[in-house]
């Protein structure tokens, strides 16, 4: 018999959209901290879903409630991706945090995210009071590079049907400029959505409000974190945040099919959370 209960439901997010929420509740809530999980973008959300579920269950077993939810335009939530922006997503995150605080009367909040979800969690934490802990799984630190790579996948996917075509690496970007939106391997994103991220530079992660403890998990099959993540973590520390960087040697489960678990990251995350109140 699991030591948690689960509940699936809808709650209101940005612009009154209904967002899908999934609550993992310990049978008896023994801690002061509630956890909100922010998922990654596009296919990374699908491919990493089960790891997030399994980790949430382990966390709930150790006495902490966890709320996972779908951002607007994603998963089971209302809206379409081309209608939303980063600001809508920040509002969704606020709604999720408010929900868990009111519903469960918890005193402290831990934000946990993977990839773009981790970046959103950090952006929220540095701009809003009341976030006591942060767990960032392999955060995206350079939005321009990240979305360029994502958009280029569309070019690659078009190659088999256009052997001698004039398809260029700029084609999806041109389409975005001309039509205001573009379909990238099934995901329709808008210029409005993209610009809301690209407007940010690296100073976006400088904190305006005090943030509690933060751990950045670097997850890859290399022997140590990438230079980019090391640099990112060091900048947060220089800026006055209490940040620890930990490297987990494991496969990037968010871009692989049939990787349903990552016991290493689950164990390290639940171990770190156990040190929270």
């Amino acid at each position, binding site marked *: 018999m699991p030591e948690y209960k689960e509940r*699936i439901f809808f709650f209101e997010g940005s612009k009154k959209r*209904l967002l899908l929420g999934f609550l993992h509740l310990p049978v008896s809530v023994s801690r002061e901290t509630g956890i909100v999980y922010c998922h990654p973008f596009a*296919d990374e959300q699908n491919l990493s879903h*089960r790891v997030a579920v399994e980790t949430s269950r382990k966390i709930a077993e150790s006495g902490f409630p966890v709320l996972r939810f779908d951002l607007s335009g994603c998963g*089971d939530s209302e809206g379409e991706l081309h209608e939303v922006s980063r600001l809508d997503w920040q509002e969704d995150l606020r709604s999720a945090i408010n929900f868990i605080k009111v519903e469960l009367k918890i005193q402290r909040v831990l934000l946990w995210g993977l990839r773009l979800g981790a970046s959103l969690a950090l952006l929220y934490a540095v701009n809003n009071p009341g976030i006591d802990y942060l767990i960032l799984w392999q955060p995206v630190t350079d939005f321009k590079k990240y979305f360029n790579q994502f958009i280029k996948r569309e070019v690659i996917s078009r190659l088999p049907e256009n*052997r*001698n075509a004039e398809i260029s690496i700029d084609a999806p970007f041109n389409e975005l400029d001309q039509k205001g939106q573009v*379909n990238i391997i*099934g995901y329709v994103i808008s210029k409005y959505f993209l610009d809301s991220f690209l407007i940010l530079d690296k100073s976006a992660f400088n904190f305006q409000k005090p943030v509690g403890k933060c751990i950045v998990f670097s997850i890859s099959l290399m022997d140590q974190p990438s230079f980019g993540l090391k640099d990112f973590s060091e900048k947060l520390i220089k800026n006055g945040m209490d940040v620890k960087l930990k490297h987990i040697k494991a496969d990037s489960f968010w871009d692989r099919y049939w990787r349903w678990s990552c016991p290493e990251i689950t164990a390290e995350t639940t171990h770190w959370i156990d040190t929270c109140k």
Partner: protein
Amino acid sequence: MEEAVTFTCNRNKLYGILHVVEQDQSRGVTICIVSGGPQTRVGGHRLYSQLARYLCANGVNVLRFDYEGMGDSEGELVRFEGAGPSIIAALDFIKQRFPKKMKIIIWSVCDGCTISLMNADSLHDRIDGLIMCNPFILDNERKLANAHLKYYYGRRILKKSFWIDLFLFRIDLIKEMKVVFNHIYQIFSQERHLPDNAYPDKQPMLQEIILRNLFGTSYPVWFIFSSDDMVGMGFRALLNKQKNHRTNIKQKLIKGADHTFTKSHMKKELFSITLEAVHSINDSKG
């Protein structure tokens, strides 16, 4: 209206979303979406979420759910071979939720089709029709090689651009010929069988089971194929080779579509054909 729902399978809780039409606008039919692996109830690029919303807006209830061990559902991962009990639990849930006469149709893609047909015996009293997109039946490399040769290379050599590339030395001919010869070898080499645990009874070929069950159905079956998908076209070729023609089986082809209908206009066409299929099945006798 969308409801977050829970039901049980093998003592595991399964989670799903039920899209419910207002009573006076309902067409009296519910679709049960059976995911292709390894997708959750949302589907790649939200295919299932968007399809469900489209159908619901057109008077059709829809249930999307996660198999045991997938998505949010409890249990160990069963993969498509073991998803039969999950599907039966979903259909029983629909029957309980809508106790009055309601037609139920399974909509599936890839190995969701495979599992639906593998379990046809258990399903035939529970459903009134099947809508299947790009069924997976390429259970060995021989069939995959066959489909690749026929639908990829076969089409390429008919294109003018291929011959221009060839004469201008833009094609790595040696590399391409190696691939072609490898495929030919696989086609004529001994067939490989499924591993023993894939189907516990007698290890018959997956293809034989699927075809036997398909031709044993009495309810309407619609196939929707993507012209640019080797998996689907491989099944289509197999189906068209059969001499056993049945009037309850229909086919539709979406030209230019890939396996999961990523292009926006292909997705729209898929939704439209699905609705056409639903109306047709709903209007049929039985």
